């Protein structure tokens, strides 16, 4: 069980050479081995979506993926959204629309939304609601998250 494998995780363009057990989750590797603690772990069974990151262009639940499965693939996390001090449109929209309270689920929602909006910029409001219902938030009651993502979609389409 404890035999470790050498892998490289490429997170936000930065290569991390790490040694992991085959059973180590991607979420744990990102946080513990690569020190990127912006990705949060809320349930470890793939329901809450707090650990959502983008692997190879797709939003995935990093608690359900083994680190070895992500080796060599481009991984994007919340730390890579902003450009320097300039917030990404989705981050700005969450701030403008009060789309976060405690902020624990926020990185997961941001990465979920970015992953979907980049792939489907013209997604309908109804479909977007379906997508957003795949993550859990316990503070906001979702209304402001929905508003924020819709606003960001508009902003991202305009660019």
């Amino acid at each position, binding site marked *: 069980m404890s035999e470790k494998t050498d892998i490289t995780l490429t997170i936000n363009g930065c290569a991390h050479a790490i040694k992991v057990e085959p*059973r180590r989750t991607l979420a744990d590797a990102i946080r513990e081995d690569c020190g990127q603690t912006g990705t949060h772990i809320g349930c470890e*069974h793939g329901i809450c979506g707090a650990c959502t990151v983008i692997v190879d262009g797709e939003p995935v639940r990093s608690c359900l993926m083994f680190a070895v499965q992500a080796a060599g693939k481009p991984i994007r996390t919340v730390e890579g959204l902003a450009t320097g001090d300039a917030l990404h449109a989705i981050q700005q929209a969450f701030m403008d629309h*009060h789309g976060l309270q*405690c902020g624990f689920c926020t990185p997961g929602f941001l990465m979920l939304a970015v992953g979907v909006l980049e792939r489907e910029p013209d997604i309908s409001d109804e479909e977007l609601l379906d997508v957003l219902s795949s993550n859990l938030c*316990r503070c906001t009651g*979702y209304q402001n998250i929905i508003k924020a993502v819709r606003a960001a979609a508009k902003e991202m389409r305009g660019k």
Partner: protein
Amino acid sequence: MKAPAKYVGRSVPRLEDRPLLMGQGRFAADISFPGQWIMRVVRSPVAYGKIKSVDATAALKLPGVHAVWTATDVAHIPRIGFRLTRIAGLEPYQQPVLAKDTVRYVGEPVAVVFAADQYAAEDAADLVELKIEALRATLLVAEEPGVYEHELTTEAGVVRKGYGDVEAAFRNAHAVVSLELSVGRHSGVPLETRGAVARYDERRDVLEMHGAAKVPHWNRDEIARMLGRETNSVQLYEGHVGGGFGIRGELYPEDILVCAAALKFRKPIKWIEDRREHLIAANHSRQQDHKIRAAIDSAGRILGIEDEFFHDNGAYMRTHAATVPDLAAAMLPGPYVVPAYRATGHIRLTNKTPCGTYRAPGRYESTFVRERLLDAIAAKVDVDVVEIRRRNLIAKSAMPYALGLETLGTHIVYDSGDYALLLDKALAAADWKNLQQQLRRRRQAGEKIGAGIAMFVEKSGLGPFDTVCIEVATDGTVEVITGVASIGQGVETVIAQICADALGVDYANIRVIHGQTDRIEKGMGAFASRVTVMCGEATRLAATKLRDKALRAAAELMQTSADTLDIVNGEIIRAGGPGPSMPLGELARAFPAGLNAEGTFESAHMVYPYGVHVAVVRVDSDTGAVAIERYVIAYDIGKAVNPKLVEGQIIGGLAQGVGGALLEEFLYDENGEPLSVTFADYLMPTAREVPEVSVIVSEDAPSPLNPLGLKGAGEGGANPVGAVIASAIDDALGRPGAVTQLPISPQRLKAIMARLSSSAKAGHDRDVTPASSKASSPDAAPPP
């Protein structure tokens, strides 16, 4: 002279947001120290049983495992004490840090493993062998109390409250309406699980605990007491907190264990709970069965209410002691005139997870019960659900209104309110009259659709005090140090807004420090919707003092009188005209001991916001699912410091209320095995289940107990949701009193519908047949 408010009352962006959006949050799991050990708790798999042996031999052989503790290793540590609402006789029911001879719920800590990393710790915990002889678990509170231990019974205590001549009220009643109602077991379930990191700093002889929340000062004092240390040699540090809702930040056995282990092993000890643990080990809440009856006159006016209820507190009495049942009993009368009242709350222990508070504790439960009662009274005297409430509301002219009851060490005196006006506002927003016609047409067309209404009084701003220290640094930034805590609700922004207006600075230049026991000697923390009221007023007092101090000193330096000066945007200027000016930061250099001031606000009474919820729901006859089509909330909080944040609190509360009304329940099998142990079994609302909502934040009744008129906004979104959804479902089914139990799961709703249709088939007129066995008193049935 004083400029008009520039920040208070405005929806300015939150100061908290940027680091959280950038992935720079510092939640408990994000804190690590070099050389730390990971703690993993070995939990009882048995609901009730005698521990025969705990064998760690195999676990200790695993590579990376440093130690295993059982009860004998912590025998010197006393049990965690009560923070609130101690009533006599509860102490023997306190939870030990690790179970010694007896386990009392599935999830109870029996041993802990310390290892080099999380994976090794979990492997080792699996290898700790527990031999437990199972006994018959107690799961129901309705039975006669059984044996808890020796001479102790499972009835830990009884809460009794009341006033007036209840017997006379029932003797003179035109009619009596009786109901039996129950609320399911559910809880706050924050998205961040619990966690704590302790380390002992030998150089300073200080034990530190990181990951503190809610009540760091009380917890610090209690940890010090339990571990036999001087208070000042224990310090707690709050980082980011991933949601509180009442359950997080109470002192739990795991907090004590990491601290004790850090002292013993001289290693940083980190514990992060997993979700399954959270769902079986962190405080549950809400589970109560009520038998309530009202004496009424012929117009449906309440003459008296008597309520007897059974509060299922799980296996032990934790830090809240009798708080939840006490609040349920104390707040039950709500916004209505109840001339005589008696409540008897039995605190019963079962072999389930122990309980504590959850957002609107006791009130979610008793509002459900009271509002069900109002609906039943309406049916009894054949008036509509709005009219019955109007007839019973406390008038504005009766304010302040002394209820004649006490809770949390205070007399309940509703400080201000115009309940009828808020009812009108909510009805107007819902377009109630037209809505009724539309719904009638849709019901005639075969839809099961209906509207409900519920009213309530909340409480907030619990004292007895809060202290704030404000200091201006020489670069002009302002630091506000408080003893409150942040659980994600926006404390930093709101306190900065109040400080900014009172002092005359930009709110973005204010740093609000909270939850750090080494920065301020005393603090009350964040609970009971107290922070904006108590800390807000303490901040205003401190900032006003600081402003006077600054202006006096500046006047001397600028050779003028203080009343000719003003502070605007952090600059001391000549009021109303050009002239020399001086930045506050520069003035601070003239104060070798710091340009600072302290303010303390003391309050012996709580302040009482109040609200109205209106819901429209559609019931699916085939599946028993409930869709919320429309939702209106009107909530009067006296004065909203940041309306957008207030709305956020209200809608967030609503989502949790919807969970408790329709989805969330901790279920157990007949042996006490928990069945709701993942997010696939314990269902929380998603973006699909929470309706769009119209929120009216009303400011008609500022509190007379603080100059800004503040009342707390944290709990009114959740309080009446079970009540209003039940009322709307009744309406959709055309059967007042149909709903008697929360949550109204699809299975339960299908069972209600099946009963209704079978009783209709049996030839009974629907208007005289009780809707369910739980509401089987003939008094509850509407008149023919």
